[in-house]
Structures are given as C-alpha cells and as structure tokens.
C-alpha cells in the first residue's frame, strides 16, 4: 500500500515536471517572445535572482491573504449556517450574496481604499470579500443535504438546534467545507493581489504591477509562480487536515488502496 502510494507520487511528480518541460519546449519551438510567454527556466532564474527582494513582498501578500482568508472562513461558515438553517435566510441572503459575488471586486477596491487608506486593510477586505462566498455556498448545501435520519438521532434525544448543527450538520458538511476551502484559498490570493495592484506599496500584486509596466514579463511571471506556489502549499496543508477530518467520507480511497 505504501509502495503504491510512493509510486503514484513519483508518477505525479514526473507528470508535473513534464508539464513544465512541455511549456519550455513549446516556447522554444514556437519562438515565443518572452514578452508574451516566458520560458519556465527563465522565470525560475528570475525568481532565484530576485528572491531576496521579493521575500518581504511574499510575506506581505501571504499575511494579508491569510488574514482575509481566516476572516472569510469565519464569515462563510457563519453565513452558510444561517442560509442552511433558515428558509427565510435562504431566500434573503442567498440572492444578495449571489449579487454581491457577481460583482468584480476590482470595482469595490477603490471604495475600500478611500475608506481605509491604501495598504493592508483593503487587501484583507478584498481577499475576505472574494473568498467567503464559496465557503458559504458549500456549507449551506452541505447542511441542506444532511440526511434527516442522522439528525433524528439527536432530535430524539431532545437536542437543541445548535447541538444538532454542531454534532451532525457541521461534521457531515466537512467534505463540502474542505472542497470550498480549496477554492477559497486560491481566490483569497487573487483578492489580495487585486487590491495590491490597485493601491499598495508592498506585496506581490505591487511587484507584478511594476513588472508589467516596465515590461519585465519574466518578473511578472515570477510573481505568478510565487502565487501559484503559495496556493499549492496552502492547499497541501488543508489536504493534510482534510485527510484527518473527513477521512470517514473518503472510504472509497481506502478501499482502492487496500
């Protein structure tokens, strides 16, 4: 079982390497200008050389994102619980949320900047405003699709609504929740960077903006690589937690591996 897992991982790693090799080859073969799409090797070199300069920006973006994401999770879970629990909330809050979510957040960043000044606050808020939505939707769906039989177990004991939510609704919803976290964390990065491009003196978004305007496309892509990397790292962390928390729901894989 362990061997199989390791083998699978090696294959996966190889495929990922292959992807970048393919990109490299494509760029060379098609004579792609590095103004349009730089080669991965070029990007990596830039990344390596500029890393000391980029480091504080990475920290800035990561910090804002984590804060926004954390708040987004809290807000998303809260709204999700409300929507999932009350029909009126479903009818009221859902349309408002959908409407709000259909709005490109770029449009509200300037308002945030005018209210809170430029810097970390708008980045955190944008990140929050972009990432809570998938969480709320998935939590609400998870709660709404919970098998009534499971709730009956607690209802028969005279449990309060909150106890049922806590002991049945939320645990049952965990697979939905973790799925939404994967989506939310990536959007949280997008939100932060968006706000940083609009008004900030630090952060990856700021670096990318400056790279774009000085036609330093490899640096721009280095910024993108950093974001992608951060996204993947956080995803990996959530995956670990997910494995522990929702293992019960993933029996299929257990079986396949057994």
């Amino acid at each position, binding site marked *: 079982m362990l061997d199989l897992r390791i083998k699978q991982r090696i294959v996966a790693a190889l495929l990922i390497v292959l992807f970048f090799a393919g990109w490299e080859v494509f760029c060379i073969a098609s004579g792609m200008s590095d103004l349009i799409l730089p080669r991965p090797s070029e990007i990596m070199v830039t990344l390596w050389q500029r890393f000391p300069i980029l480091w504080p920006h990475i920290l800035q973006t990561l910090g804002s994102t984590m804060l926004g994401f954390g708040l987004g999770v809290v807000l998303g879970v809260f709204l999700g619980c409300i929507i999932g629990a009350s029909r009126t909330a479903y009818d009221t809050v859902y349309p408002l949320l959908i409407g709000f979510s259909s709005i490109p957040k770029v449009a509200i960043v300037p308002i945030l900047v005018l209210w809170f000044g430029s810097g970390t606050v708008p980045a955190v808020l944008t990140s929050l405003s972009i990432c809570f939505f998938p969480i709320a939707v998935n939590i609400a769906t998870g709660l709404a699709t919970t098998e009534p039989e499971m709730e009956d177990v607690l*209802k028969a004991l005279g449990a309060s609504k909150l106890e049922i939510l806590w002991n049945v609704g939320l645990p049952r919803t965990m697979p939905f929740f973790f799925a939404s976290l994967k989506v939310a964390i990536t959007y949280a990065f997008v939100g932060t960077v968006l706000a940083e491009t609009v008004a900030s003196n630090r952060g990856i978004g700021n670096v990318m903006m400056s790279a774009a305007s000085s036609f330093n496309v490899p640096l721009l892509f280095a910024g993108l690589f950093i974001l992608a990397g951060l996204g993947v790292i956080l995803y990996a962390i959530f995956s670990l937690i997910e494995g522990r928390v929702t293992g019960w729901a993933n029996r299929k894989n257990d079986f396949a591996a057994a």
Partner: protein
Amino acid sequence: MSESQTPSLSVAPGTSAPEAGTHRTPAIELSQATVTFGRGKQATPALSSTTLRVQDGEFVALVGPSGCGKSTILRLVSGLLRPTTGAVIVGGREVAARALRVGMAFQNPTMLPWMTIEQNIMLPLKIVQPYKASYRRERKGAFRDKAHALLAQVGLKGFAGKYPWQLSGGMLQRANLCRALIHEPRMLLLDEPFGALDQFTREELWGILQDLWLAHRPTVLLVTHDLREAGFLASRICVMSARPGRILDDSPVDFARPRTVPMTFEPDFVALNQRLREFIVSARAGAAPVEAH
C-alpha cells in the same frame, strides 16, 4: 417479581380510550392519532386513527405486518413526527419528549459515520442531562468506561474504536441498542433492535434487556416481528393491522418474571404465540399485502 406491580391497561381496539378510570397519567397516550405522508394524489396514509395508552413502567410490544406504521408510532412518541390529526401526549405533555430522556433504537442503526462506535454510543451522554454537564470531564473517564462496559455486554468488546462501516450488520444493531440504553432513559423506544441477529445472540440480549427493565422499570415500546420475542419481553402485546395501521388487539402477557428461554417452549407460551398467530392470520385475510402464489 410478579407482573402485578405494573398494571397493564387493555384498550379495546377501535374505541377511544376512556378519559376517566385511570388514576395514573399514562406515560404515552396516542388518541385518535392519524398520520398521512404527502398530500393530494401523493398522499400515503400510514396510520389510521390509532389510540394507545402505555402506563409508566410498562413494557409494550408492537407487532404487525411490514409497513403498517410501527416505526411511525415510535416516531410520533419520540416527537420526531407530528400526527396529521389526533393527539400524542408523552409524559403529560403534547409533543416532544425532551424531559423524558427517551432512548431510541432506530430500525436502521444510523450511526454517525465520522464518529467511532464509542463516540456514537456516548452521544446521548453529550446531549442529555444530567450527563451533559459533566461530559467534557468524564468522556475519557467514567463515561467511556460505561460505554465500554455496555459494548462488552452485547459482545462488542474491542470494537469501541472502530468506525461504523467496519462493523457487520448485526454488530451495528447491537451498538445501536447500546446507544439507546447508555443514558438510562425513563422511556425506551426500540424498533426491531434484534432483527439482524442470530437466535442465540438475540436470546442473550433478551435476558439483558429484561434484567434492565426489572431493575429500573423504564417504559418500553418494542417493535418486533418475532412473537416469541414479544412474549418473552413484553407485559403487553399490541397487534396492528396492515397499512394504514390501527391497533387490532391488545393483550397482556402474564408470565412470571424473570422469564427464561426454556419458558418460551412451554405449552402456555406456545399457546399464546399460536393465538396471536391465528389472530393475525385472520386479520390479514382481508388485506393481504402479498399476492397469493
């Protein structure tokens, strides 16, 4: 101990229970309760005007054909369902049984899949007072020991840490029974708790349940398909008609306690079974749910 300690009240089928004449408030009282699922064309009548009284400390068995509304009655009593018409009074109050600390074993042993068997079984302790108050403190101590002891009693020693899907059908059913018992409820609602068990395990559990009842005298409503089981355990047997169900017959079982398995082979006992059997056969004749072959 003789049966006389818990007087059984016989209700004539089809007539509403007399309002006066009982000096104790019954633990459970269904009066003219009807349940219809869905509406319009989709309507499925599940229970037709059922009247049933169970005194505090009585052990009542419900038997009847598949789909006649036995589980529905348990759901009514536990407050999971409200009657379409009629009233359900439990512990002197309409609806819900919070204060009564109901212990319910569902027909389908719905274990929460994210919890181990132990955690599943300790669930009532987490929810029901007075255990709730000390749950955080005791869940790794006294409560856990209690759960383990109960599991050992039903033959699931060593399975406390397993997840529900790692247990066989019969094992789950035994765990389900443990969950109904752990908080020592004043009212037990058991929906075919031994259905998936072999004869021997079943008989052993009968003994355990009987001992428990004799010791604490909870009010028990037991749904079963096994007339021997009903006869062994119950102080009263209610026979239901086919869907939509009504209570057709309600007869006390007066064998001395504690009853033993050999007793179930004695002529008196066999005669009771035979009587019920014949009664059911004649009752079914009109509305046989299965085509003759």
